[in-house]
Each structure stands twice: as structure tokens, then as C-alpha cells.
């Protein structure tokens, strides 16, 4: 099935998504890699409200032009690095959609099931294609402290995808299925 969602989304909508479905997102998303997860969880800093946005595992390549930030290239980064944070992150911030690549582990899977969320995969390395779907940069946090890749960037996206539902809210994972098939 193919779905086109506008953020924020409620739990009923998340429940519609099953492993293998295709999703396109419109609305606000924020980027967070290792360092941003660390700051938001361990140092308990959250200057923006992440609850209504999708979380994007991404360290974008940005350019400042006439005082305004623009996205040059912004594909996903490897999600498994965030496995050590993600269940806690979902619990604390109510994150319902996580966008990344490569898949995540058991702990995240359980949290997605418990709190009704999904992990969707975007094509790794497709940075130029992703940049086309990002319409506006509405904010950035911890840029000086963490540098461009690790900072938290807020993007307004339109029809961001195709995203493949890889882990759903029913405890199913496309990656687990593959491992069994080996």
C-alpha cells in the first residue's frame, strides 16, 4: 500500500502502516544523530518540541546563502548507531515516525510497538534527491557546538519519500524477516 501523510500524525494513522508499505511525508521533520540524541536525552535539553515532527537520522550538507540556510544534500545516515538511545527517546518525546537507513534493533522495535511508532527507510546516499523534497529550513540547534552534521536541523518537507515501512507498530521488521530467510 502507498500512503501520503501530513504531520503531525495520530496513532490510528500509524497503525495503518505495515512492513513493506510505501510512505510519503509532508510537514516538519528534525534531524538528530548521535550527539543530538545525547544532548536531548542525557543533558535533558529540548529547545524545540519534537513530539509532532518526524525524526530523521541525517547529517545534512548545508549552505548559507544571503543569511539563509539551504539544503545541498541530505540523505539518511546509518540508524543502528542510534539504537543505544532510541527506545528512551521514543518514550520521552513520543516520536511516532523515525526515518533512517539500515534498520534498528530489538530495543527500538519494542518501543515502536509499545508506544505505536514506525521506522521507515529512505534510500541511503540519495542526498540530492532528498534535498529536492526539503522546501524550507525553519531552524537549527547546537550548530556551533556540534558542527553541521551533528546539529539538529528543522526541515519543512513536501512528499518526502519514497519511504519504505521497515519496522511497524505490530513488532514486525523487514530486516528480521530477511535474517530468518538466510
Amino acid at each position: 500500500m502507498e500512503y501520503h501523510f501530513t504531520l503531525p500524525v495520530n496513532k490510528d494513522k500509524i497503525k495503518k502502516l505495515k512492513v513493506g508499505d510505501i510512505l510519503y511525508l509532508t510537514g516538519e521533520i528534525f534531524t538528530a544523530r548521535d550527539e543530538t540524541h545525547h544532548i536531548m536525552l542525557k543533558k535533558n535539553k529540548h529547545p524545540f518540541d519534537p513530539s509532532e515532527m518526524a525524526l530523521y537520522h541525517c547529517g545534512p550538507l548545508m549552505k548559507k546563502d544571503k543569511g539563509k540556510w539551504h539544503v545541498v544534500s541530505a540523505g539518511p545516515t546509518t540508524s543502528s548507531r542510534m539504537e543505544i538511545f532510541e527506545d528512551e527517546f521514543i518514550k520521552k518525546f513520543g516520536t511516532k515516525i523515525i526515518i533512517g537507513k539500515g534498520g534498528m534493533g530489538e530495543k527500538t522495535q519494542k518501543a515502536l510497538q509499545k508506544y505505536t511508532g514506525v521506522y521507515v527507510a529512505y534510500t541511503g546516499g540519495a542526498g540530492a534527491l532528498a534535498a529536492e523534497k526539503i522546501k524550507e529550513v525553519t531552524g537549527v540547534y547546537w550548530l556551533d557546538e556540534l558542527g553541521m552534521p551533528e546539529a539538529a536541523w528543522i526541515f519543512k518537507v513536501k512528499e518526502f519519500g519514497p519511504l519504505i515501512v521497515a519496522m511497524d507498530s505490530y513488532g514486525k521488521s523487514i530486516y528480521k524477516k530477511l535474517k530468518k530467510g538466510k
Partner: protein
Amino acid sequence: MYLENIKKGIVELIKKAETDLPLDVVNALKSAYKIETGVAKIQLEAILKNIDLAKKTKRPMCQDTGIQTFFITVGIDFPKILDLKKLIVDAVKTATIQIPIRPNTVDPLTGLNHKDNIGNYIPYITWDFTNGSDVSITAFPKGGGSENMSKLGMLKPGVGIDGVKNFIVDEVIKAGGNPCPPTIVGVGIGGGADLALKLGKKSLLRPVGIRSRDKKIAEIENELIKRINKSNIGPMGLGGKTTVLDVHIEMAHRHPASLPVGIVVQCWANRRAHMIIHKDGNWEMK
């Protein structure tokens, strides 16, 4: 003016590597697209669209523009050999702003980003020397996601070549979707620990689809491609027939007690660009 012109050429070289994927890789991805279905085909379609878009808009195909890595062969009659290192460093600084490429050099202790892609030992340059007066430079920006899947195995010589093959297949399957498959796997067998990994990385400079000149190694490469592609990991680890586009093996002699195997995984964005600088300062992309 002479040096400035060469620096301009190196910036162009980095730009070409970051924005324009070599044809051998694009063709391999197109062949994969033809045989895949479903989710795997969707991934390859996005990859091919992305390659086209990056080339047309002259922007880096992937936001991870890598650690700037260069392989240089210097003709010993080139007049400005001692200026080459500084030229590369300056070109990387300029490219960071001009192209732009993502600032990717971080202090391992403090986590501070150097912001210009420069740092201790980085850009990473491998030097070689030859006769003549031309300088040959290959830019090989290497992304972090695939590099993280590198592996060194100090195997027991008793496991033999079958043990080597099993180690490679197991490690690539373990990496799953993390290194952005379909990947190109570079393997160095033999040498010491550092040489095995170095050869693994160097083997990635060989175009996709070209087998080793050594027939026995070529056979092993073919066997590994088949075995890994049976894993069904597929593009981006979402399932499919194409997990690797190619496997390249290079060999060195080893110590009787050691059997090092260095695996260096390269994402589908196997970015390489090549230039020749002549002694008069003129340069050309090859």
C-alpha cells in the same frame, strides 16, 4: 599562477568525484535495476534518479562527502613535487566552501569539528613514484557508513582459503543494510594487518566489473559475489538479489604465522575521479 591553476584543477577533481559517479558503477547499478523487483527496484530507481540529479545540478550525490582521500603517483621529473601536499590541502579547504562538501573532520578527543575537512593526517594521501614528469591523482572520498563496516581478520593460516572466503561472506552479511548496499567489497589478503586493509581499500580503485588479472583470484571473486548475493540482503538491506555489485581482491605475501584479511566496504556511491597534471601546469580529467 602556475600553482593556482593546479589547485583549481584539484578542486575540480574533488567536485567531479562528489557529483559525477563513474560510468562503470552507474552501469552496474542499471543492470541491477533491470533484474530487481518490488522494494529493491524502488531503491535502485531512487539511486539512479539521485545520480542523474547530482550530475545535472552539480551537487554532491550524498550528504556524506567523505574523508578526503587521494592516491597520487608522482613522475619524478615533475618540477613542483614538494608543493603537491600543500596544494591538495588548500584545494580541500576551497572545495569545502565552493562545492560545497560537508565538514567531516572531527577531533577524536573533543568531538570538535575542524570545519574545513582538514586535520591530523587528513586529507589522507598515499604516495607512489614513477618515471616521467606527469602527476596522476585519484580522488577517492570515502563515506563513514560504509567505512564503519571495515573488518580486519587475523586468521589462523590453518583455516586456508576456505576459511578466508567464509570470513568475507560472513562479515559482509553481518553488515546487512548498514553500508548502503549494493556495495563494492575490497579485500586485501596477506601482508601484515595494515597492509591487508590498505590493499582492500586500494582494490576499490579498480573499475566495477573488472576481474583480477590472476585467474585463481578472479575465480574467488566470482564465487564470493555469488555467495553474498544469495543472502537476499539486497539494496539498502530491504531484500533483493543485489547485495554487492562487485568483490575485488588484492594479495600480498604473508608471514608464515599470519593470515591477515582486510575487508573494506564501499557504498554504491563508489566515488572516484582521476586527473593528470603535466609539468607545464596544465591538467586534464581522465
